[in-house]
């Protein structure tokens, strides 16, 4: 039985979000662990680093492990996050005989530049993703169990309201060929409403999203992998580190699960992972022509969508509610703590690691926490591989934050 557990997680880029009201997979995961395991301690590692700096961060984590006699360490990484020093994690693992369980977001994109290096020290990996035979882990002899995108089912509810929108899409309209498909549907006379980045109606919050999903006869889901050419200034993370070819991977998106959890109908772009989620031929489309055909069919035969939706909602709750999913996964995690003889890293990883730490360096520098800023310098001197684009982006963002802080103080 799992007990004495420490969860190191990053709730969201805004941090300090209240729990369990937030709806992300990380929060659902953390809350489910909290519910199912005794003696759980949770630390937001991102907050901790900004508060204590490199040395204080390590001391606080080690103290927590020591004081609480931690045996299981769950690390829930954000996709492009390089906060952790790999050597420090190995030191903790060996000293306290920790069983390390990693999760990560979007391994389709970030396994290559980041995850695989952190994963080599994990005893188990629980990907929020569906991959054939979990090949990316099996290739390196790493034990993994598919976690899927998991949610708190109470946050995705059936409003039982009239369906007033024919077709809707919530998400980034500018990604891949989504706009082309949406325009194609519009030209063919389909009444489609779009929400999210680049859309006519713009961003919406969770409550509004629930309302739109519930009001739609047909919701749409597209499956391209996360990849952008740009640094993400909201999350201080560098998307371009991903390898472009990996955007060919058809990612099984969580949106499909969210929609069926609310007891609403969704048509999703096809892909191997997507099929594995619900294994239902009727809810996937191959291309824009197939999509148009299916939309017209389901708009004319809505009783069929209700039948499909009722079945799939039950399946979604059983399979993708975080507590239900972890009830089946946790018993498979038998305590073990493998010894790491050699730590493998490549220059690519080191470059990304050192460059990411300029985020903290500039932040501390502009807050005049010089002691904490200086703690970052040995990292730069030790590894000496840098991605100047990333460094420039951190400098730019932290300068803007510093300017805003000064302006607020003046006000």
């Amino acid at each position, binding site marked *: 039985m799992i007990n004495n557990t420490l969860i190191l997680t990053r709730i969201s880029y805004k941090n300090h979000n209240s729990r369990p009201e937030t709806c992300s997979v990380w929060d659902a995961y953390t809350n489910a662990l909290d519910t199912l395991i005794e003696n759980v301690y949770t630390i937001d590692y991102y907050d901790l680093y900004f508060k204590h700096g490199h040395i204080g961060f390590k001391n606080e984590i080690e103290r927590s492990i020591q004081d609480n006699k931690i045996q299981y360490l769950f690390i829930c990484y954000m996709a492009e996050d390089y906060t952790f020093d790999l050597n420090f994690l190995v030191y903790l693992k060996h000293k306290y005989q920790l069983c390390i369980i990693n999760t990560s977001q979007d391994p389709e994109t970030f396994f290559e530049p980041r995850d695989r290096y952190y994963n080599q020290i994990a005893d188990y990996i629980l990907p929020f993703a569906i991959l054939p035979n979990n090949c990316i882990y099996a290739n*390196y002899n790493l034990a993994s169990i598919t976690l899927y995108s998991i949610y708190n089912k109470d946050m995705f509810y059936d409003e039982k309201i009239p369906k007033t929108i024919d077709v809707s899409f919530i998400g980034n309209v500018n990604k891949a060929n989504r706009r082309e498909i949406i325009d194609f549907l519009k030209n063919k006379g389909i009444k489609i409403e779009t929400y999210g980045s680049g859309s006519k109606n713009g961003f919406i919050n969770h409550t509004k999203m629930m309302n739109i999903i519930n009001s739609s006869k047909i919701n749409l889901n597209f499956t391209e992998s996360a990849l952008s050419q740009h640094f993400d200034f909201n999350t201080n993370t560098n998307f371009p580190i991903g390898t472009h070819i990996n955007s060919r991977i058809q990612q099984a998106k969580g949106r499909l699960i969210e929609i069926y959890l609310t007891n609403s109908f969704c048509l999703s772009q096809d892909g191997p992972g997507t099929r594995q989620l619900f294994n239902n031929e009727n809810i996937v489309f191959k291309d824009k022509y197939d999509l148009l055909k299916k939309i017209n069919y389901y708009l004319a035969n809505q009783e069929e969508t209700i039948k499909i939706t009722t079945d799939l909602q039950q399946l979604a709750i059983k399979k993708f509610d975080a507590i239900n999913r972890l009830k089946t996964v946790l018993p498979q995690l038998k305590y073990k703590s493998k010894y790491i003889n050699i730590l493998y890293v490549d220059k690519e990883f080191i470059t990304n690691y050192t460059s990411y730490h300029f985020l903290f360096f500039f932040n501390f520098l502009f807050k005049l926490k010089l002691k904490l800023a200086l703690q970052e310098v040995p990292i730069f001197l030790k590894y000496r591989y840098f991605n100047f684009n990333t460094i420039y982006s951190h400098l730019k963002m932290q300068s803007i934050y510093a300017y805003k802080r000064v302006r607020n103080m003046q006000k």
Partner: protein
Amino acid sequence: MMFHSLFLYQSNYQAIEERVEENSSIYTGFNYIEYLHKNTHTSLMKHINMQIVNHHINTLFILIDNCDSSLKVEELDSLKNKHQLKVIFFFMDSKNSFEYIDRYYAQMADLVILDETPFIGDFYKLLCIETFTLKHSFKIKNIKKRNFLSSSLINLSSETNVICRDVISAQHLQEQFKEIFTKLSSTFNNNIDLLLDNKHLYAQTIYEIYWNLYHFHKNHNLDIFHIKYLKYIIEIYKINKQISKNKADIMKINIIELLNRALYKKYTL
């Protein structure tokens, strides 16, 4: 469908060559590395183009078994589009070269044929690329990092047992190739846009510089020396000096490895 096949290979796999030939109504093929030892890359592409035109080629087979990026992805893709070719790759060491080379070629493939190395087919499946696993009588090399183009983490992989089936009958191989050609008859040409990135660029640059240095020393000529190499001029100069000392033994110097050591730090993703 009548197959007019051109087979380009990096090293000789006679059994495979024979199977391709017997399933094609017109067949021609050659070792493109041997060709490159005597000719420039530009003339190789002209030669391939000529073969395609002269023999009315509609199917191009390419076999890469030891991590090679000498053929340029964009040029092959433009040949494919120009002549409406079906392109089939045999990758016999994809575990080592998937990350930097094979997957970029594979994008244009109508079919990728792999050996029995565990899991490797799943990597292609993830990219929605169709594969065929060839159960053959050749040895699968032990999986250990063998060259710079794979991540150091490959050391964590299990060693694959050497498969040494005494007799996988010629008939069995024939049956598999029949299946391959039947599959090819029913597939439409794959015409997707290429997605290339720094990893591809890195491998390609190394091989471009390699062939230029090789021809400079061996045949005293240069292919197109691209302006982009100027930023590596110091590294190239140093390697060139090293090669000059051992000119007689140029084949024994691992120029690729030298280039990697010199250039890796210049690339970031």
